[in-house]
């Protein structure tokens, strides 16, 4: 169940400057844990103390915002692409 994860620039210091990483996970929550296992320290940036994704971070699965899906319980399938994007101003 490998998924591709797009890492935003500010987090690439955790991923040895890799903008795209491949990880095994069956859901967004599992992916967050898998990221922490591979890149220790990254979880504290992504989530608050309660394990909830920080409100200024948007997470997309195959271009769909997970808030339109099943939030952090959104399931992931082999080949899915997950994008982590900090919120940006309007236009």
């Amino acid at each position, binding site marked *: 169940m490998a998924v591709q994860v*797009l*890492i*935003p*620039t*500010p*987090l*690439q210091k955790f991923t040895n400057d890799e*903008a795209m990483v491949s990880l095994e996970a069956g859901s967004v929550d599992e992916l967050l844990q898998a990221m922490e296992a591979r890149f220790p320290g990254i979880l504290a*940036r992504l989530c608050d103390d309660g394990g909830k994704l*920080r*409100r*200024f*971070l*948007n997470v*997309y699965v195959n*271009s769909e*915002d997970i*808030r*339109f899906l099943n939030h952090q319980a959104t399931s992931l399938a082999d080949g899915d692409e997950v*994008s982590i*994007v*900090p*919120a*940006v*101003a*309007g*236009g």
Partner: protein
Amino acid sequence: MTATLSRSTFIGLRCKECGHPYEAGARHVCEDVCFGPLEVVYDYDAIRSRVSRATIEAGPTSIWRYREFLPIEGEPIDVGTGFTPLLRANRLARRLGLKELYIKNDGVNMPTLSFKDRVVSVALTRARELGFTTVSCASTGNLANSTAAIAAHAGMECCVFIPSDLELGKVLGTLVYNPTLMAVKGNYDQVNRLCSEVANTYGWGFVNINLRPYYSEGSKTLGYEVIEQLGWRLPDHIVAPLASGSLFTKIRKGFDEFIKVGLVEEKAVRFSGAQAEGCSPIAQAFAEGRDFITPVKPHTIAKSIAIGNPADGPYAIDIANRTGGSIAAVSDAEIIEGIKLLAETEGVFTETAGGTTIAVLKKLVEQGKIDRSETTVAYITGNGLKTTEAIASSIGEPFVIEAQLDSFNSAWDRAQSLHRATWETVG
């Protein structure tokens, strides 16, 4: 460089959420702690010592008369942006039953007829200072126009991204400056996500992404100008459109800064925001008493404010709540009526975002949420000539006549009876 640096009144960046400090580079999120948005920090003592009403009044008739309040170090890119008319709107006020109403008309801003010229003038000045040679943005149209135009003036490379379903005027009004224009098959939020990914790998200055802390400061000038144009006083109530919510928060910041440095006497100002029903995540959260935003998928003619996932939404709700204002949404039909009402009463042709603002202004007065005695300012942020499609089927048509007096006479008679019919309907 020392001479110009010493003129600068801004110190660096700081996270709006947790306060963590950062150097004044091209970054927009609190990457070391919480991913909150970064804001510019100023030395207000330095500003206070240098600025007075007289020094501002002696400055250029552009946003750069307020340069001490803006995050640049050297010479600005001045294309005459800002200092747009503040129109006393007596006929519209009478129609709505308000005593004192003003229209801040950024539909005639320079060079591209929207408030975005303010933010882009600041962003591209800072982009140049930070060494960028290519600038970019994700846009619902107006920002693309402005970025392309001011980049052309400054001689910078430009690549901008828009949703592919934008109004023709906004597409042509970008292409004419000869940038690279990417029309993305998707809505604004999808364009924005793509741009964040592009910003990851291309070393460009994205005005609303990695330059966002500087860019958004440009909107403060809409606060400063209203104070100055009202004769150095604050209004009682303002109504502004809400897309990402950034403009709304920066008007507030502009008012607060002028109070802080002693340029205007403090008083309470109520802040009310306007959204289109087809994209109203902030109005929905406000109505339900939430302080978080649930994103929506936009479906409205008000494309310039159709942001389903507004980054500054929580701050906009906070300001409306703290100041005793409201956030309301109106239908597409009401938006068109708002455009027509402003045009017919004040001679100002605004785009759909402005129609939204006027329709919400009307609604809030009718609901008693704007007091009839309050000095009220409505912010009109864009020009109607860019979105003619939105009203084409709602504004009547010309009488086509022969170049003969007879033909005119009979058409004039028909026009008079049509006018009478309209008046009878109105009552």
